[in-house]
């Protein structure tokens, strides 16, 4: 045999630079291998707390992202009509001057005329500071159309949410139940976790109308009818309560189940919790039979107590729950047909949950002390864990459904315990420890406080003196009183309608609002291009920052081209969405591992400059000079309050470097770079479970600067703030909702989870099929399509139909179908899928592209065969005949109800292109078809 001699140890690269991936909110650590200064290969960073070395397809394809021909090259000024895509390149000086000329007068006269909205921004604490300093109340990121139901329900109920703010205890859980997740923000950790628990033989249950991805590997698949999870979950709650399979100890000690609800129907406090003079919730102590504040040392809260006073019975939350959930309304037999799961299966699932939670319970030999001062010898494990995301969140009943799921977790005693669900710092943190929304505008001055936050009653709403919404998106108004993340999806339509008021400049950052991130895509394009009678655009000015030639670029007047993620500084901060793990606090940076080869600038650095140019206090020194040279300067030198900055690692303490609290350290970024781009501080053993009640954890968190003082609290099975809104709707208090909203508020703001069916509002009688989207694991929204490798995986998207609908409509693979919703119509290619709920159709999200965008050929399959469901979705519900148009949103949080989309399907003639097919936009970066032979080191 004469085999060729191989070089088995070729040089891999000249240098490895470690930074953070950007292709989704998971923010994995990456090793960027460079050859001759160019990116040669990207792999996961093994030391990184998030991904521990693994990397998803998008992360590995980063090299094609930073070299995509679609990258914007220089600032652009619109020269053609809006929407045409005709631009000329201008200098940064000119671009900044234009922006300043537009914004300066607004700030002087009426800062609310600026609406500044960002997409899946990873620098929200920074962008919000800018907006606050500008003085506009109109700031939010994408959370409102994304998953605010999940986030808000989690925080109001238990002081933290799934999303990426918590995780199952992958090391101990034995039953993992996943609701409505295709990919999520925590994508690599979820995959690692599923792999890990399956290797241990733990059971994974997927509740999802579609059986792909995680749901395909799930041991059991529950192909639920979309929009009915709340009912299903409450039926599980029914079964578990009825069988007494609930953790009474946990409920009594750590939740508001034993808290007493004011039963005095005549009182303006009716339905609120009884509190002592210090505002502490009251319970009945089983030892004494007397009222006691919940946190009194030695108190044994009584779950079953009734407090009779002045002829009125005040009953515990637990009693209210029993009354509600034990009724036959939630019996499996009652709900089975609606949810599409047999009564027997519901019982079996409940039985399995009970079996694992209680028969497979275990204890960790770890002493800990709770906030009442009681020391527990061990930690009680409940190895059942849950996770959920947009499948339950992106419905108009999503908030209550998410709440229902948290209630299920809590009655099992499986939150923050071994084997259950665990928070990642800075969570847990009660809703009351978050800011409240601020909206007070003063010309030429900053806003009175942060824009977003958590309302606890009518007083916290963002209303003007006259009771109208203070914000352009009507967040924190009576239409959606607990809209903690704002309502980005309503900004353009409200601004267009001038309701609640007109604005002058719309300033947006990384959100493809004229395409895949908007509802009613065609309508939005019209709103962005429509003119008034005097020939002005209805939305007069639009400034936009993107890094790539997206569909949205064509609809802006001024483009501020951003760098790509390997070319700039970024900060993944404990102040917004950090990279923590349940056992550790962690944050991270990005830094320019390569230099841009175009005339582009990091957006945050541009804001530093623009902020100074506008004289915004947060960005200007006393002498009027620019405060932060660039974003890196801000990251290092900004302090939220003394000792607390964007980054928690390597701060300057009295005796040298320290973590958490500490002064500014000029060498901080270098320390991060040396450490691989991130910082981790582990939670001490014994402090890492029972966090909301564990004094060791609370003390550690204070030390780290996560809070200023310990914040122990009870989980809210019963969410009191919701009751306050109900009370207002019932006529109490001086802040009163408009009459047309009273009934809805009374109904929707139920402080105990309930379920209502959003389908009839979407005309389910005429449109009986639910149409869903899922994120492909290998694509990030619209950006994947410009990636030469990824677009080969998902270059177009068929509509998947269940076998039943294929047969009924006489369809075979490759046929075309017309899909009609109450709002619109699309014609698209179909494929059959058997592992699918039989009244559900679906497609991959955001694969369809506008011709001319993303530097793709106009005949690219993304543009000819690809399509969006967004054409079928409207930001308003179909008219109900009451003369009003109701938002297609959750009535509590305003979360966009993407997944309530109802359609009808019929066979169509074969088409040459998916319909609607829109005319191409001009590409500001040219096209680059042709072959790609990529090899950096030759």
């Amino acid at each position, binding site marked *: 045999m004469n085999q060729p001699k191989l070089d088995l140890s070729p040089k891999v690269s000249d240098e490895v630079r470690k930074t953070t991936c950007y292709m989704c909110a998971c923010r994995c650590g990456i090793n960027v291998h460079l050859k001759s200064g160019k990116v040669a290969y990207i792999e996961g960073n093994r030391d990184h707390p998030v991904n521990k*070395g693994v*990397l998803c*397809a998008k992360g590995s394809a980063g090299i094609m992202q930073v070299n995509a021909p679609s990258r914007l090259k220089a600032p652009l000024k619109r020269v053609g009509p809006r929407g045409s895509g005709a631009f000329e390149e201008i200098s940064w000086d000119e671009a900044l001057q234009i922006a300043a000329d537009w914004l300066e007068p607004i700030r002087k006269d009426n800062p609310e005329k600026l609406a500044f909205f960002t997409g899946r921004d990873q620098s929200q604490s920074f962008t919000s500071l800018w907006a606050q300093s500008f003085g506009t109340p109109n700031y939010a990121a994408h959370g409102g159309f994304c998953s605010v139901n999940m986030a808000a329900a989690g925080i109001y109920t238990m002081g933290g949410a799934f999303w990426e703010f918590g995780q199952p205890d992958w090391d101990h859980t034995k039953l993992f139940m996943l609701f409505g997740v295709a990919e999520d923000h925590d994508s690599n950790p979820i995959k690692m976790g599923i792999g890990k628990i399956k290797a241990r033989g733990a059971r994974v249950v997927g509740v999802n109308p579609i059986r792909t991805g995680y749901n395909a*590997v799930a041991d*059991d*698949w529950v192909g639920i009818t979309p929009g009915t999870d709340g009912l299903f979950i409450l039926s599980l709650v029914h079964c578990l309560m009825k069988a007494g399979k609930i953790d009474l100890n946990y409920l009594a000690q750590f939740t508001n189940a034993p808290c007493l609800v004011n039963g005095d129907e005549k009182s303006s406090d009716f339905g609120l919790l009884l509190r002592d003079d210090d505002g502490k919730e009251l319970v009945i102590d089983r030892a004494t039979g007397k009222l006691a504040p919940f946190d009194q040392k030695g108190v044994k809260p009584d779950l079953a107590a009734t407090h009779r006073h002045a002829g009125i019975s005040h009953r515990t939350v637990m009693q209210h729950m029993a009354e509600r959930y034990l009724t036959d309304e939630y019996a499996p037999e009652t709900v089975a047909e609606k949810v599409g799961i047999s009564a027997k299966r519901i019982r*079996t699932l409940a039985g399995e949950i009970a079996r694992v939670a209680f028969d497979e319970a275990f204890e960790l030999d770890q002493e800990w002390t709770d906030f009442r001062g009681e020391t527990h010898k061990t930690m009680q494990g409940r190895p059942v864990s849950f996770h959920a995301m947009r499948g339950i969140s992106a419905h108009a009943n999503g908030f209550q459904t998410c709440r229902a799921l948290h209630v299920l977790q809590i009655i099992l005693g499986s939150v923050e315990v071994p084997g259950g669900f665990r928070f990642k710092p800075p969570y847990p943190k009660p809703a009351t420890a978050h800011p409240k929304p601020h909206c007070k505008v003063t010309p030429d001055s900053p806003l009175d406080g942060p824009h977003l936050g958590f309302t606890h009653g009518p007083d916290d709403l963002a209303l003007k003196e006259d009771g109208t919404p203070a914000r352009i998106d009507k967040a924190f108004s009576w239409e959606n009183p607990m809209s903690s993340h704002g309502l980005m999806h309503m900004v353009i339509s409200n601004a267009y309608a001038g309701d609640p008021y007109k604005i002058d400049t719309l300033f947006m950052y990384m959100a493809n609002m004229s395409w895949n991130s908007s509802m009613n895509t065609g309508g939005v394009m019209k709103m962005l291009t429509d003119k008034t009678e005097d020939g002005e655009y209805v939305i007069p000015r639009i400034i936009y920052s993107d890094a790539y030639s997206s569909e949205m670029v064509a609809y802006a007047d001024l483009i501020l081209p951003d760098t790509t993620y390997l070319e700039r500084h970024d900060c993944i901060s404990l102040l917004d969405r950090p990279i923590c793990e349940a056992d550790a606090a962690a944050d991270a940076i990005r830094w320019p591992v390569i230099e841009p080869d175009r005339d582009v600038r990091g957006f945050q650095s541009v804001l530093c400059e623009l902020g100074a140019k506008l004289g915004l206090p947060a960005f200007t020194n006393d002498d009027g000079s620019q405060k932060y040279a660039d974003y890196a300067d801000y990251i290092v030198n900004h302090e939220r309050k003394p000792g607390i900055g964007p980054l928690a690692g390597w701060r300057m303490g009295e005796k040298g470097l320290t973590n958490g609290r500490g002064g500014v350290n000029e060498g901080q970024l270098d320390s991060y770079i040396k450490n691989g781009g991130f910082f981790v501080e582990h939670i001490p053993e014994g402090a890492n479970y029972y966090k909301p009640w564990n004094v060791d954890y609370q003390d550690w968190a204070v030390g780290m600067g996560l809070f200023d003082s310990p914040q122990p609290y009870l989980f809210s099975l019963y969410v009191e703030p919701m009751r306050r809104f109900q009370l207002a709707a019932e006529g109490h208090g001086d802040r009163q909702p408009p009459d047309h909203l009273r009934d809805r508020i009374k109904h929707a703001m139920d402080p105990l989870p309930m379920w209502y069916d959003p389908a009839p509002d979407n005309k389910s009688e005429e449109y009986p099929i639910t149409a869903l989207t899922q994120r492909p694991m290998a694509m990030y929204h619209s950006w994947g399509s410009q990636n030469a490798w990824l677009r*080969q995986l998902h270059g177009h998207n068929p509509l998947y139909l269940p076998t039943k609908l294929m047969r009924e409509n006489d369809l075979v693979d490759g046929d075309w179908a017309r899909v009609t919703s109450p709002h619109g119509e699309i014609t698209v290619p179909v494929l059959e899928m058997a592992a699918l709920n039989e009244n559900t159709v679906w497609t991959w999200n955001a694969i369809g592209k506008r011709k001319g965008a993303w530097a793709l050929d106009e005949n*690219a399959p993304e543009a000819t065969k690809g399509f969006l469901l967004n054409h079928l979705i409207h930001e308003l519900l179909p008219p109900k005949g009451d003369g009003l148009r109701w938002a297609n949103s959750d009535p509590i949080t305003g979360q966009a109800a993407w997944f309530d989309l109802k359609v009808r399907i019929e066979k169509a003639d074969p088409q040459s292109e998916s319909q609607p097919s829109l005319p191409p936009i001009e590409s500001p970066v040219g096209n680059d078809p042709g*072959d790609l032979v990529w090899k950096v080191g030759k």
Partner: protein
Amino acid sequence: MTTLPTSTQKKLGLVIDLDTCVGCHACVISCKGWNTENYGAALSDTDAYGANPSGTFLNRVHSYEVQPAQGEAQLIHFPKSCLHCEDAPCVTVCPTGASYKRVEDGIVLVNESDCIGCGLCAWACPYGAREMDAVEKVMKKCTLCVDRIYNENLPEEDREPACVRTCPSGARHFGDFADPDSNVSKLSAERGGMNLMPEQGTKPVNKYLPPRPKDTLAVPEGDIDILAPYLEPVAQEAKGFLGWLDKTLEKI
């Protein structure tokens, strides 16, 4: 050499776990990235931003639906790269000797400088594991990352294939099947590792772990439900429930 070695010292290969593969394509892209930059010619993409993009990949993830006789349809994600067959027909058909199976570890490789691009090896492979690069016109295939697994420029722990290193769900395992104590041999033995197309007689080294039984909680109507005792009611309605609560709390 075109003839196959009578035996190889090691049998390096992969175990792919169909029970945990979530179909994320991470392995596909990390393979593309590594092999574009490393062994042999770059993996090209023709018409990369055009109407008909087509590129060379050494590993691709399929998906299949399985309809059991009873119960719900299942979906299985199915990654596929070269199986490094013991009786590799792709090797014996090669007229130039460019295709060969390494004696020391059984890796099947293409020596690109000898390859005339006749395509015959791809015809002979039942698994579609070989792709002719459209620009370089040489046959490309999975190298089992031969330039990683022994690479002294990489830290010890990174000396494994790129696809294995990156797989988030841990569905890919690399090792020596000649060693009965290796992780891959044991996994394959425990979980019933299967050969693809055994009737083709290729004796693949790579093994696939079948998905575990699914939907076992979906007991057919009427069967005895072993979980029923866990839901034995303690009360029928709220009143009774409170009584039970009281009693139970008394005991704690």
